[in-house]
């Protein structure tokens, strides 16, 4: 039965497993020991509860990882206590605000310049269908979207490598005690 529990624990995210895996297995072993004299029905329900609990727990922890929460709270040092905010430093909102203000100021400046210019005597003619083809435009938009996706993915990948990924390599309290 412990083999089944161990394989279910393998479904948890590695940092979580690293931090709580041994403890959980020790508790499960104690539970098995305490119910070895119990009636078969009670033992069955205990095992059913534990198996479903482990499955639900693994699903919850993976969901938390996907949602951006830390997979486990490694409480070894100050560095280990870094949370998801590490991937998006506190300076980010300030930087975004500065960029937003700069964009608004640029728009206002452009408006004032266009208002100060004399009206053009020759209006710009409207675009004609022969000026562009549908296929070319579609391909251009597709290429642009793909480039944006690649850039975005690279940025996310770089952020993950810089923070969360390294955190998962930090040895847990249990692991460091055992070594």
């Amino acid at each position, binding site marked *: 039965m412990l083999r089944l529990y161990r394989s279910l624990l393998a479904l948890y995210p590695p940092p*979580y497993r690293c*931090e*709580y895996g*041994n*403890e*959980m*297995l*020790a*508790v*499960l072993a*104690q*539970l098995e020991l305490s119910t070895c004299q119990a009636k078969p029905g009670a033992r069955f329900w205990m095992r059913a*509860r*534990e198996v*479903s*609990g*482990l*499955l*639900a*727990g*693994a699903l*919850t*922890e993976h969901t938390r990882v996907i949602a951006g929460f*830390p997979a*486990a*709270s490694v*409480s070894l040092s100050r560095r280990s206590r870094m*949370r998801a905010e590490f991937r998006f430093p506190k300076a980010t909102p300030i930087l975004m605000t500065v960029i937003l203000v700069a964009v608004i100021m640029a728009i206002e400046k452009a408006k004032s310049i266009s208002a100060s210019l004399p009206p053009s005597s020759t209006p710009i003619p409207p675009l004609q269908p022969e000026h562009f083809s549908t296929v070319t435009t579609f391909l251009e938009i597709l290429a642009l979207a793909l480039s944006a996706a690649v850039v975005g993915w690279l940025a996310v990948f770089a952020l993950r490598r810089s923070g969360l990924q390294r955190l998962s390599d930090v040895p847990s*309290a*249990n692991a460091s*005690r055992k070594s």
Partner: protein
Amino acid sequence: MANFPITEPVLLILLSLAERPRHGYAILQDTREMSDGRVQLSTGTLYGALSRLLENGWIDRHETDDSSRGKQSYRLTAAGRRNLQAEVNRLKKLAHVAGLRVARKET
């Protein structure tokens, strides 16, 4: 105040640790006794709750002789005790109101 949902299992875990530091198996036994066998936490549920409580700083690890044998003990922090006290006060008020409402006869 609490930024962590205090469900019944979480409340029982906190109450279990309010008395003294306990390790995982002892918490499971204590929560079952406190609820007269009504709440039987699974190991997965217990450690899910413990990891959230650790993240929120409501509990911390307590080093004991058993820690080296895979039996990690946990204890309530000052913040955890404060939040537990607030929750207990809330439940007291709720129980008081509930008692009054139940006792009130329909006119």
